[in-house]
């Protein structure tokens, strides 16, 4: 019987003939934490009796969520992570390097890897053909110390996407549409595996956006085959040798198949306070917003910035709209500067953030006031997410975000272009 991508990877890493429903012990190829989950991981590791890391070269501590630190407490947490990295010889990705879910793809993830991170959006690495899943601090501490952990092999949903996107419709609209269709728990415990002609043609940027948000449907992983596009991405970050082809068996067994016609998708928005509370941008006309965020681990990559620039160039946000842009990594920031994107965005009134998670988690750099609404390219719009339970968050693509910045209300990008 053929295997899904999840079954293939977990079979190889557990040395068993792993099938959906099995519980396996699998090798962990990459374990990482970030600055809001890492300090607990360090303390749990230290209290567990495990004395050293199984694989220090592939254990990474990211300081990306509160960067540069907005307060003394978080500075102390950062110090704890830096000291632990020094003592254990693991990798440290300090302030300015970027969001873990971008840096991990640039520097570490290989097709076929098992990746665990103490951050739910670890699923992003599935775009490169890895089995990547978010875990809590203790589980990642165990993976760091033992070099393995236990996994229930998930059943998989095949998401079959065919057809071409209309102009100004992108991967973000596709994943928001999918989550809106199956619900925020529509894929709980499952592996979402993406197939079809649209996916084959899709850039790595689009694949990262989709894999990133797989968890918003409850999924344990969101996995793509590793193909020529994967190879070109790894080459572009100087890791061509890390490439290996990986695809699901043609006779793999899926719990269900979800078919999506990309031609029919339109700019889609998640309304407060749930990611699955979706609507079409055109139907939300008149919804006023005070802040627009383009960036984060979901949509802070070059292609995303290019879309924002193409819509905003030479224009300014509507009166009363604050535009915030955060490139996801140092590499992206540098490239965006070289290409003139950053100057263009600043001229369009954007406030540029350092590479990092920015305002997504409500810590700093754009917390909302009472009754304010923000349209963000991030991945979550839960009550209180951006620092204030009395505020409202809408999620959309970079194109919808940029178009909405120009009008001050939620706007289908096709209306302004």
């Amino acid at each position: 019987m053929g295997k899904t991508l999840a079954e293939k990877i977990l079979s190889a890493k557990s040395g068993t003939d792993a099938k959906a429903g099995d519980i396996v012990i699998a090798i962990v190829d990459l374990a990482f934490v970030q600055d809001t989950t890492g300090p607990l991981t360090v303390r749990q590791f230290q209290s567990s009796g495990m004395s050293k890391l199984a694989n220090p070269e592939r254990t990474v501590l990211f300081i990306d969520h509160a960067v540069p630190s907005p307060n003394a407490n978080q500075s102390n947490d950062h110090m704890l992570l830096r000291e632990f990295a020094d003592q254990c010889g693991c990798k440290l990705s300090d302030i300015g390097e970027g969001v873990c879910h971008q840096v991990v793809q640039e520097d570490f993830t290989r097709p076929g890897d098992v990746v665990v991170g103490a951050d739910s959006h670890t699923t992003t690495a599935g775009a490169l053909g890895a089995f990547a899943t978010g875990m809590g601090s203790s589980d990642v501490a165990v993976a760091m110390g033992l070099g393995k952990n236990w996994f229930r092999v998930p059943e998989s949903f095949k998401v079959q996407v065919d057809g071409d996107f209309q102009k100004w419709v992108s991967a973000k609209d596709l994943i928001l549409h999918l989550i809106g269709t199956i619900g925020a728990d529509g894929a709980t415990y499952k592996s979402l595996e993406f197939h079809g002609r649209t996916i084959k043609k899709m850039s790595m940027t689009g694949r990262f956006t989709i894999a990133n948000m797989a968890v918003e449907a409850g999924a344990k992983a969101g996995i793509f085959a590793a193909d020529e596009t994967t190879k070109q991405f790894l080459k572009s970050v100087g890791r061509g040798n890390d490439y290996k082809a990986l695809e699901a068996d043609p006779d793999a067994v899926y719990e269900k198949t979800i078919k999506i016609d990309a031609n029919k998708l339109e700019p889609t928005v998640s309304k407060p306070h749930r990611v699955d509370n979706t609507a079409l941008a055109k139907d939300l006309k008149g919804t006023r917003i005070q802040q627009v965020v383009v960036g984060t681990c979901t949509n802070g990559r070059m292609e995303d910035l290019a879309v924002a620039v193409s819509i905003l160039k030479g224009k300014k946000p509507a009166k009363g709209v604050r535009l915030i842009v955060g490139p996801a990594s140092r590499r992206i920031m540098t490239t965006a500067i070289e290409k003139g994107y950053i100057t263009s965005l600043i001229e369009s009134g954007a406030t540029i953030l350092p590479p990092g998670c920015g305002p997504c988690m409500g810590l700093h750099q754009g917390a909302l006031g009472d009754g304010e609404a923000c349209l963000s390219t991030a991945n979550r719009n839960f009550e209180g997410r951006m620092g204030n339970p009395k505020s409202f968050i809408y999620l959309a693509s970079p194109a919808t975000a940029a178009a909405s910045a120009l009008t001050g209300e939620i706007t289908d990008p096709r209306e302004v272009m």
Partner: protein
Amino acid sequence: MLKGKAHKFGDSISTDHIIPGRYAPLRSNLPELAKHVLEDADVNFVKKVKAGDFVVGGNNFGLGSSREHAPLVIKMAGVSAILAKSVARIFYRNAINLGLPVLICDTDKITNGDELEVDLTAGTVKDITNGNTLTFGKIPEVMLKILNEGGIINYVKKHGDITV
């Protein structure tokens, strides 16, 4: 046998409801962090909850972030178990890893304030207030082993390894 009062919440209680990101500066000061448990779902929860009580949710309890601080602050509030119709994956694993039972049952039959008795071995929730007895789904064996050791860190401390 666990005994306490039900604190009922609705569907889709996210980790941001349980312990919002804006309190991340308190994550290395757990007693202070725990004062904000479930604040964005019920601002008075922390004043009402007593040792042994139960948090009772609806569908998809604990969705969102991987923050283990979410089940941790619920445990620190003295809650003896979480009951829900369904639970998000990472939250479920995190709670068990901390030795906090999560029991899947039909919580529509429980009303806020009901007195409950949970028998972990028999797999039953007895609602003393309305006389109903509910059964909860079996906790997977590997998780039961972790739960019985008081969480994954204790498990690894004792066994020096993890097996299934």
